[in-house]
């Protein structure tokens, strides 16, 4: 156990020690002169404006969810591609059927205008 994971634990120990040293050093050794400008949330020098919550358009949701749904098909295509030869024609036609179904869904999204950003 220790022989395998030992070096890793050692590295983590060193990293944590080093990082905490830097933090403690910076907060205890440095001089502090807080001014109102310095206490502001950093925003490229200009005055910050607006609340914390940015209202996102629902279009982002739609695009993101379509991306996720169509992205998941890769889960099935990768193993299929690796075993392409052994699966033979049955595998080929099964995957064709699967892709046709996906394309039907995509066409539907497209015709319904779900892919258009500007309406």
């Amino acid at each position: 156990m220790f022989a395998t994971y030992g070096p890793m634990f050692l590295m983590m120990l060193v990293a944590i020690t080093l990082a905490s040293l830097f933090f403690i050093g910076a907060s205890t050794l440095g001089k502090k002169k807080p001014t109102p400008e310095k206490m502001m949330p950093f925003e490229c020098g200009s005055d910050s404006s607006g609340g914390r919550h940015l209202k996102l358009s629902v279009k982002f949701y739609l695009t993101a969810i379509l991306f996720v749904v169509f992205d998941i098909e890769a889960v099935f295509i990768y193993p299929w591609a690796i075993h392409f030869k052994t699966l033979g024609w049955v595998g080929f036609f099964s995957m064709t059927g699967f892709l046709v179904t996906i394309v039907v869904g995509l066409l539907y999204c497209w015709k319904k205008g779900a892919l258009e950003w500007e309406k």
Partner: protein
Amino acid sequence: MIPVEYYVGLSAILFLIGGIGFLVRRNVLVALMSIEVMLNATNLALVAFNRQHAQVHTGQVLSFFVIAVAAAEAAVGLAIVLSFFRLKRTVRSDEADLLRN
């Protein structure tokens, strides 16, 4: 090598966290996330058990399908939450009180 029991234990804990989260929290989005945690706990259990029965990969294949279904479920779920939010301006499930008895 980490024994299979550890994985199964972890998945049981995750599943419990998801289940309790679903039952206790009143925020619909958190309930949705809890369901995802439960499904992922199931995936972990399936993959872990597959190591016990390593001759065939049924458990792993099943977990692939669960991932795909979970994505579709999230899409439909978020759409329903969105239409609920549009009408009620809230995502709290205790304010879903139009239908009673």
